[in-house]
């Protein structure tokens, strides 16, 4: 078991921390799915793209929705198409395989080379959803019930699962994953992240933006605190508009890029005018 494997060290466009690298490498070495949680906008989905780029493995994404069932990820047997074909006589309806459509997990198993499989926002789906995938992700194989074919992964895909914490995930599922919680970046890391997105940004403006940004995040009554992606967007807008200096006051330019809720805008104005902390 002392075989060397390639370690993940981040990419030029995606900065990592020691803890994140360690978690990714654990997941690679132990061949277990990596479960990534964290505040929205901390780059959970981008991590999968970065890993895909670092290992030059194609990325297959499965966006989970509230209506998604585990079966959809494996394959879908298109009964309606077959029914219509049988009625109107198009094609050979005896061949069920023609009506089996593989989902992202099925495609990842069938791929010729190692791929990165991103199961995005797994918590969006039904509570039972992760449990239904346990066996398939563990054994890396499943059987197509209609044809009896077994689909076995040729190359074990790198599985990244993200969660926004909308629901608790089942314990059995958690036990099989390597877990990482993406911290909100501190000022130093944030400076580097912004530099990746906006190379050549004026240092003085960046200082001011970061100061304002962390000040707003620290405010007590924020319902939705601005995240990295909002900071990056805000700076982009500032640059477009040719703003060269910002400071924290009521007339903060393009505040709407940072704060997305009416209550937050009100709280912001309140805070700056030294408003009362509690509403009765």
């Amino acid at each position, binding site marked *: 078991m002392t075989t060397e494997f390639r370690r993940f060290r981040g990419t030029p466009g995606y900065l990592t921390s020691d803890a994140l690298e360690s978690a990714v490498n654990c997941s690679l070495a132990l061949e*277990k799915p990596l479960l990534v949680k964290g505040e929205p906008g901390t780059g959970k989905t981008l991590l999968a793209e970065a890993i895909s780029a670092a290992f030059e493995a194609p990325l297959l994404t499965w966006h989970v929705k509230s209506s998604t069932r585990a079966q959809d990820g494996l394959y879908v047997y298109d009964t309606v198409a077959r029914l219509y074909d049988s009625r109107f006589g198009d094609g050979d309806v005896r061949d069920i395989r023609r009506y089996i459509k593989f989902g992202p997990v099925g495609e990842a198993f069938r791929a010729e080379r190692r791929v990165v499989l991103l199961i995005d926002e797994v918590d969006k789906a039904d509570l039972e959803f992760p449990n239904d995938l346990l066996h398939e992700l563990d054994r890396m194989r499943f059987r197509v019930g209609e044809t009896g074919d077994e689909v076995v992964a040729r190359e074990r895909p790198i599985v990244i699962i993200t969660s926004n914490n*909308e*629901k608790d995930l089942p*314990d059995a599922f958690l036990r099989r994953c390597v877990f990482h919680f993406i911290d909100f970046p501190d000022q130093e890391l944030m400076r580097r992240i912004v530099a990746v997105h906006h190379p050549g940004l004026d240092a003085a403006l960046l200082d001011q933006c970061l100061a304002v940004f962390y000040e707003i995040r620290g405010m007590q*009554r924020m319902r939705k605190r601005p995240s990295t992606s909002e900071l990056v967007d805000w700076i982009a807008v500032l640059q477009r508009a040719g703003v060269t200096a910002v400071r924290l006051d009521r007339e903060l330019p393009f505040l709407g890029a940072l704060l997305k809720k009416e209550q937050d805008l009100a709280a912001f104005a309140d805070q700056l005018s030294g408003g009362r902390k509690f509403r009765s």
Partner: protein
Amino acid sequence: MIVPFLYALRRRKLPVGTQEAVNLARALSLGLHESSLEGFYEVARALLVHSEQHLDEFDVAFAEHFRGVTFDAVKITEEIRGWLEEVQKLRELTDEEKASIEALDLDELQRLFEQRLKEQTSRHDGGNRWIGTGGTSPFGRGGFHPTGMSVGPPGGGSRGAVKSADARRYKGYRTDVVLDLRQIEVALRRLRAFNREGYADELDIEGTIDATAKNAGELDVVVRPPRRPDTRVLLIMDVGGSMDPYADAVSQVFSAAKRATHWKELRTFYFHNCVYGRVYRTDHFGDPIGVHELLRVTSPKYKVIFLGDALMAPYELLATSADEPGNPPTSGLHWLSVLREHFPHSIWLNPEAPRGWSGNTIEAVRSVFPMFHLTVDGLTEAVQELTRRR
């Protein structure tokens, strides 16, 4: 040292078991920790912790366990060896897991540890900075000594593991203390239930196939009503007086409930201290509705959440008075019992800490409603109570 650490985690209610132990052993044997305590901290955290709620407990346990530890590498290697042998004896291991343990190169592990120990001693004796400067170490990572940061200057750019653990950056994610809007929303979301009703406009594929087959192959389309949320919630809140310090927490619960889109209906009412014959539709005690009128328009299917500290002068709860001239006098407690009898799915959320729940009016209110502390854990239990079938 490591197995007791796992037990220390278990004592702190972290769900770690054999599977986690085996994973950790495999990771260490693959050298993922890069032979440093700091690396061990990262690896152990990734493998032993499954939820951000537990990160803080992990940090506390780690700091406690590894503080002031002089890393006796030989002993550790012995211990890991013994531990692995012990693990091998466990019956529930699969063949695969057994193989992975047998494949551990123990000598290699020992060599790494010893080398590490030598480096450690020399740094100790020489009085150098304990956080590594890289360069001389064959493993390239500094900060091996667990408590190094507390003695030496914080140089070298890397953080000692115990220091990261000590920082307790994940305190905010503990579920037994904080309550933030998002967490309340998540807790309340479990209150939902679905039912099929309304206009049938969704294609029932299974049903269509069955019907078509029964119909000798002639297409027979079956439709059904879509699934819709079917939870009705009453939120009844105490405002003013002793509740003022909790105004923020209460307003968060309120906005989380308002934003919950997965309920069929949410009605909110207000009262002061205790319910006497009527509740109010606005928080300034306007637009009252009598309790009996409320019971008439709401079915027992409603899930009812009371939110209040249940603290008041005893006479406010127990003294009898007539709500309307001519009606028989009744006490506040009686009104609460009337509500409880009508709504089997009802609970009381209390922002006061449970240690102050006895010897005052809270005790009396608790005898009527199941009471839960207004924290994420308490809210989760409350939701479980509300969704229990009766």
